[in-house]
């Protein structure tokens, strides 16, 4: 049985209000006996409703209690010995002190709750700011690194423009070639995603012959578009072709998308 749905249906409230048929009432009592969570909820509803009914009480006319006692055969004298607290000074003081300390406890309890919540809020805020800071720092380091690479006097930057049947596309890429440090970086910022099943392959042209520099992927959502690629000595030009995944030995010339020559 889906006890939660049963509880949320409002049937327990109607039970407490006495609005169910005898059959329905038996069902509620059976369910309460079988499922502790239904029983617990029922008790909570009973308590809440009881408080409500007590709060809306209307004092009966005087003399009602006396009449009841008379009818049940209890003498008023016996009833007069009711368990009312006959307080002495000490018990008054004790009660007052207890009340004061409870009020104080309530006050400090609230205060400390409030402060705790504030601390939790601020801690969350701090964590968020810290994370943001770290991200900015990382991007900053990357960008600095790129500037260093591009600004190095030994770095030659080669722009590779769209060519062949791709001439009229916006495809463009760049190579930063450093003979001194024997390193090469590829900038793929403005290459479109390759067709499905295809991959870009980079080539260096040495003495008019293509030298494989490996396949590469575009890495989306990166804050930098630079990636290091193998260094090929004596390169005069660079080109990118679209090949089957994994690359090929010799470039498919009609699938050359960008090309650019050094100096």
């Amino acid at each position, binding site marked *: 049985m889906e006890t939660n749905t049963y509880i*949320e*249906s*409002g*049937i327990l*409230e*109607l039970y*407490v*209000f*006495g*609005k169910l048929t005898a059959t329905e009432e038996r069902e509620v*009592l059976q369910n309460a*006996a079988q499922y502790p969570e239904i029983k617990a909820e*029922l*008790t*909570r*509803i*009973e*308590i*809440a*409703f*009881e*408080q*409500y*009914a*007590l*709060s*809306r*009480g*209307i*004092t*009966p*006319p005087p003399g*009602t*209690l006396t*009449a*009841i*006692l008379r*009818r*049940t055969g*209890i003498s008023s004298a*016996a*009833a007069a*010995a*009711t*368990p009312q*607290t006959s*307080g002495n000074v000490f018990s*008054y003081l004790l*009660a*007052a002190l*207890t*009340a004061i300390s*409870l*009020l104080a406890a*309530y006050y400090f*309890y609230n205060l400390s709750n409030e402060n705790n919540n504030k601390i939790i809020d601020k801690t969350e805020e701090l964590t968020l700011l810290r994370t943001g800071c770290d991200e900015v720092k990382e991007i900053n380091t990357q960008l600095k690194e790129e500037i260093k690479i591009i600004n190095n006097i030994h770095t030659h930057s080669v722009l590779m423009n769209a060519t062949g049947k791709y001439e009229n596309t916006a495809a463009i890429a760049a190579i930063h070639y450093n003979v001194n440090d024997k390193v090469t970086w590829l900038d793929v910022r403005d290459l479109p995603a390759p067709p499905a099943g295809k991959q870009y392959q980079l080539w260096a042209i040495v003495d008019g012959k293509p030298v494989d520099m490996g396949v590469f992927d575009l890495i989306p959502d990166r804050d930098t578009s630079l990636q290091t690629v193998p260094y090929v000595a004596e390169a005069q030009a660079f080109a990118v072709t679209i090949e089957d995944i994994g690359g090929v030995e010799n470039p498919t010339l009609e699938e050359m998308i960008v090309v650019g020559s050094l100096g």
Partner: protein
Amino acid sequence: MSNSIQEKKSREQEIVSLLQLQDSKGLVLLYEHYSSALYHIVIRIVRREEVAQEVLQDVFVKIWSQSKSYDVGKGRLFTWMSRIAKNAAIDKTRSKNFKSTNKTDSIENFVGDNISFSNSINVKDSGLRKVVGQLDGKYHEIIDYLYFKDFTQSETSEALGIPLGTVKSRSRLALKALRKLLQNEQFLLPILVILTGL
């Protein structure tokens, strides 16, 4: 659960065991704590003060004599007693001599939703009244129609102009809202109880 609930629970247990031992203190305690709430139930149905007083006496005599048949496992004492009160009041309205004289509903006008005419409100009750007073008007209304006015679900749906299913779901929401209000105050109530115990 809250202190006030525990306090209530132990008081209830005390009253129940006194009643079942047929100790007269139990009856007096019972009257002190529940007579106003039970009187409200009765007077809203019979609608005449002198009849309500008589029915209330019947109710207490019944509770006293049937206390052994009250089963703690089946629900709370107040739920059991309020059923006795309601049935006694309804039985009264069905009796011959009640019908012949029941032409006015003057009590209805002056009881209505107005709870302020009770002249002996102690501090605990007034604290509780304040809390309950914060309850949304439409929740007061649904409880009032279903419980105190003793309308059926479909009569309530008609009277309030809401779908039948809404009667059920609004009852649930009303009690939920009430519980939330009471929970917020659960720490203050025992303090009020102690203060009034002086």
